[in-house]
């Protein structure tokens, strides 16, 4: 009762005196939402003030994205109220939410790959004259808008031609440009590299200064501490608490999120001498494809983790796809356990005991409408062939084992995987390949969108697998992370392997130096 009174008064006040940073801009009270038996949100409260950057945190599946979708009317809510500037709103579609002053970058949306970048930015609000879209004007504005984000691309080209990172920046630019009162960003930085994150943060700060309230969801705690003013934590669909950032130590935050302490990860990198003695699992000589990746040499040993580092578009994913067999090489030699092999298709890769978790989980990874169990056994079944079907009991067994081992939530193997939160989908993918007992596992951004708890677990798992003799090739944009688990790091630039660091040389500084070394640097060396 009193809250609603305060809200009404607040809005009058705001009307007269402009935004007051102390008053709630967006107020969410007692929101509940169930999907069948799953209670995704229970009586959640959330308050956003004008001009603040407010982090919304929680484990995978805690209900962050659901809260956002309920607030913006994408999902109908079961109970609760939402007020903006003191006025109650009940948007029934994303369009209505925008009209009410809330602009959102959803976690999975991505925009429309078949439309041009400019159309994506201005869809449904194109500049018009006489009922006709002013294409030139729209492009000009699109270019100007993206320039703010440090992006200079052909805005007339279809969005799908660009990398995930560029697509994500476009989505953010669109939301920012809607000039709403509230901006909600659900994991906007998951696929951005440092440079782009900095640009985004700069823009967020500017917007906040203008009195816009920003909700920021992320699993990168460093970023959370860097940018946010206050933090709200959800766990299992319930509100755990809301704190000022300054008064919340990291340990405490993690305890709020997980409901327990985080086990310390140990950096168990093997000594150089030790891993050099190990047997080679797979090796590639002068392996490459014209217009795709410059031919490279790569040796992957049993029981070691090789990290691939580089900027966006440097050719890491391409290397991974060649190694796995998802792309055909047009030259060079591949061998497994010393025997020369042909890798023409993913099936070849699977046959030779390879596994590959692609970075684009939704389009290349999960089969959304199949269950968790079916997704987990898929690769194993494909490997065994048609005539040796896994019995239902075996499937249940396998699914249960990995759901438990990777702590997939909710722990229901019969749930369509598309209904899981992003992080849990990632774990299902990992389980799919672990179930095949591979000798080589290629992981492209395995921790993207994964919460701190699971993040630590996955890194622990990577080390464990490695100790079991598995060979791992891991791509990650998190250099700290790469350094934590890699025995060796290959650095890429412009679709070529430019540097290989091993043993003690594996550290963030060296990697950055290798990434940054450009033509000038090379020239300098040559002169020396």
């Amino acid at each position, binding site marked *: 009762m009193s809250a609603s009174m305060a809200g009404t008064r607040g809005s009058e006040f705001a009307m007269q005196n402009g935004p007051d940073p102390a008053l709630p801009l967006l107020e969410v009270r007692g929101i509940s939402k169930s999907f069948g038996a799953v209670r995704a949100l229970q009586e959640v409260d959330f308050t956003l003030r004008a001009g603040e950057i407010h982090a919304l945190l929680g484990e995978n599946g805690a209900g962050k994205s659901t809260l956002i979708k309920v607030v913006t009317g994408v999902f109908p809510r079961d109970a609760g109220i939402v007020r903006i500037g003191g006025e109650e709103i009940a948007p*029934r579609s994303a369009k209505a939410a925008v009209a009410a002053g809330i602009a959102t970058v959803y976690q999975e949306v991505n925009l429309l790959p078949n439309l041009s970048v400019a159309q994506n930015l201005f869809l449904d609000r194109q500049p018009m004259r006489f009922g006709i879209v002013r294409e030139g004007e729209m492009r000009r504005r699109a270019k100007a808008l993206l320039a703010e984000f440090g992006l200079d691309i052909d805005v007339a080209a279809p969005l799908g031609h660009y990398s995930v990172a560029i697509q994500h920046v476009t989505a953010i630019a669109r939301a920012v440009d809607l000039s709403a009162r509230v901006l909600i960003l659900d994991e906007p930085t998951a696929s951005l590299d440092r440079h782009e994150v900095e640009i985004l943060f700069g823009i967020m700060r500017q917007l906040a200064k203008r009195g816009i309230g920003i909700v920021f969801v992320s699993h990168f705690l460093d970023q959370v501490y860097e940018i946010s003013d206050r933090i709200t934590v959800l766990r299992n669909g319930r509100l755990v608490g809301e704190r000022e950032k300054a008064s919340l130590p990291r340990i405490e935050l993690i305890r709020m999120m997980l409901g327990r302490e985080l086990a310390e990860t140990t950096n168990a990198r093997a000594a150089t001498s030790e891993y050099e003695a190990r047997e080679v699992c797979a090796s590639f000589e002068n392996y490459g494809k014209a217009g795709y990746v410059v031919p490279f040499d790569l040796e992957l040993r049993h029981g070691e983790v090789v990290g691939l580092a580089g900027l966006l578009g440097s050719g890491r994913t391409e290397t991974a796809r060649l190694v796995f067999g*998802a792309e055909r090489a047009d030259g060079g030699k591949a061998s497994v356990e010393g025997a020369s092999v042909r890798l023409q*298709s*993913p*099936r070849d*890769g*699977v*046959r030779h005991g390879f596994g*590959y978790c*692609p970075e684009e989980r939704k*389009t*290349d*990874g*999960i*089969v*959304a*409408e*199949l269950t968790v169990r*079916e997704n987990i*056994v*898929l*690769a194993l*079944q*494909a*490997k*065994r*062939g*048609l*005539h*040796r*079907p*896994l019995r*239902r009991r075996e499937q249940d067994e396998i699914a249960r084992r990995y759901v438990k081992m990777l702590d997939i939530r909710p722990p229901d193997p019969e749930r369509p995987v598309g209904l899981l939160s992003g992080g849990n989908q990632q774990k299902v993918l990992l389980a*799919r390949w672990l179930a095949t007992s591979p000798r080589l596992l290629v992981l492209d951004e395995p921790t993207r969108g994964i919460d701190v708890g699971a993040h630590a677990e996955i890194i622990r798992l990577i080390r464990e697998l490695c100790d079991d003799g598995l060979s791992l090739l891991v791509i990650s944009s998190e250099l700290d992370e790469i350094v934590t688990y890699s025995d060796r790091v290959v650095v890429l630039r412009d679709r070529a392997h430019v540097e290989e660091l091993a043993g003690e040389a594996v550290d963030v500084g060296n990697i950055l130096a290798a990434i940054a070394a450009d033509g000038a640097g090379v020239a300098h060396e040559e002169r020396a």
Partner: protein
Amino acid sequence: MTALLPRRGLAQILALIVILAVDRVVSPQFFDLRLQDGRLFGSLIDVLNRGTPVALLSLGMVLVIATRGIDLSVGAVMAIAGAIAASLADTHSLAVVLAAALGAGLICGLWNGFLVAVLGMQPIVATLILMVAGRGIAQLITEGRIVTFSSPDLVWLGNGAILGVPVPVAIALGMLILTGAVVRGSALGLLIEATGGNARASELAGVGTRAMILSVYVWCGVCAALAGVIAAADIMGADANNAGLWLELDAILAVVIGGTSLFGGRFSLVLAVLGALIIQTMNTGILLSGYPPEFNLLVKAVVVLTVLLLQSPKLTGFAGIAARLRRTKA
């Protein structure tokens, strides 16, 4: 297993019961059964017997649709198989006749599968090619005539009975069990559903998606050929001009009524066959009702829409409609 024992077949079973009840109203003797020349005789048997070709088509079609495809050529393949069977029936043994007709269906399926899986054509146009040309091929075989035959073996296939059950019905049942056993007894079902659900992801998981796609079109061709042989055996002649004409639409309708999405993924064989029965129960009811034929299509349209609305995810009872109306108005 979910696909063999329908968990979500309630709407379909209800629809079937309702239509059966309506049939009983328009035709009081609808449920009468008697034995005639060692063969069960009655409207219910007509429903099963006449429903057989579409049921067989839907068995193949449901797998094709599960991979996100569609096969418009099944009617033409029926005509080809029927034409071949009829031309050979009086000079060759039943085994040879069947082998030739089903072999033709297999080749047709391979062709469709090749266009879709290897050349990457869109299924609707890829199979449109055979839909057009296939009927021509069938007419080429019969030279536009109705080729009649008298081979008792083949006639038995269309009009005989096993323990009172018409042979076509027994064959359809056998094919349902066979397809179910092959698809669910091996990993095929899972891999087909994965391919239809997300072909790129499945390919990357090591599934031979091309082989999957190829094989479902082949099976669809074989099922269509079998339906064609039965249709020819039924009228003791091959009518290349009309056999299977427009039946592809009925087969697709049956699959969709059976709850399989045209966007691929999850499928159910039993429900697809049930869908075929729903369509035929309606058709037989229309014929029994004695309404002038100008009404046939209208009745069909209304029934189809009603059955679909019953299954609509957005609609659970009348409350659903009211809620939706309120929402769309707002």
